[in-house]
């Protein structure tokens, strides 16, 4: 299948998700259960995307584990996104250079 079709579908779905409520929604969702699912979903999605894929993200398990631990610690202290991401990459790189 052509990559253009994938990209068109991807972009179309993403745009509609953003656009429909923004342009049309006027009422609040009433179901507390649905609201709760929507509240937890983003964090659950990010966790599932990160684990275990992050351990394969550097092509080397050692640097990936070090990078992950550093990212979790830096994130725990609520540093900005950019700092967390760079700390993960830098610590992984240092690990690869040393070992």
């Amino acid at each position, binding site marked *: *299948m052509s*990559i253009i079709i*994938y*990209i068109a579908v*991807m*972009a179309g*779905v*993403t*745009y509609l*998700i*953003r*656009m*429909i*409520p*923004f*342009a049309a*929604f006027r009422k609040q*969702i009433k179901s*507390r*259960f649905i*609201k*709760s*699912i*929507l*509240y*937890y*979903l*983003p*964090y*659950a*999605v*990010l*966790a*599932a*995307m*990160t*684990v*275990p894929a*992050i351990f394969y*993200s*550097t*092509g080397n398990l050692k*640097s990936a584990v070090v*990078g*992950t631990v550093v*990212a979790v610690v*830096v*994130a*725990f202290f609520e*540093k900005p*996104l*950019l700092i967390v*991401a760079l*700390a*993960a*990459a*830098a610590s*992984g790189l240092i690990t*690869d*250079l040393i070992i």
Partner: protein
Amino acid sequence: MQKDFKKGFSDGIPIGLGYFSVSFGFGILAMSSKISAFFAWLISATNLTSAGQVAGAEIIAASGTLAEMILTQLVINLRYSLMGFSLTQKLDSSFTTPKRLLLAFGITDEIYAVAISQKGKITASYMAGLIVIPFIGWTSGTVAGALANQLLPEIIANNMGILLYGMFIAIFIPAAKKSKAVLVAVIISAAVSVVLKYFFPFISSGFSVIISAVIAAVICAALFPVKEEEEEL
């Protein structure tokens, strides 16, 4: 009107700088998924989202199905629907329907966070200004990453692969620190994801994310229904 645009423009600069480095990671990831620099740019210019693009690139690399692509984008990006809805309460009368159709494209986690934290209502000019630098940062970073992938020493390029995951960690760890329920959701989701990866290898990564996240979110919604003040993402 011009003043609002300028204010939005300058508020968008730090977001854009952050996006440049993170999308650099996406550019590298795209190249290692055999997606060319041009198509990596096209994905970034038409999607403007991190997690969805990573998952989308994985599906493209694995020649997945379109159903998988639609479902994955729907689940991963569903938060934008909530953000878009939340923002509608904040828009002034300058947001005509055509402007809403156009500016909806720029709803991202960070743009939403900045827009929603403004005092009072926001104008369409402000939101338009706010989107400019993040869009430029995101698209140019993607191209820089894709090109750098060929130029950088392998050891550096490899370690840049962790950038996006680092950003995801930076979003869910502070949230899990503040809320035990979010922590439980994160742990369940990660655990299911690991089980699927090693015990059900025939399930693609896209579906694995959907299954893991929905199981975790439904369990946590049943165990820890949110209180009114927790609703806003």
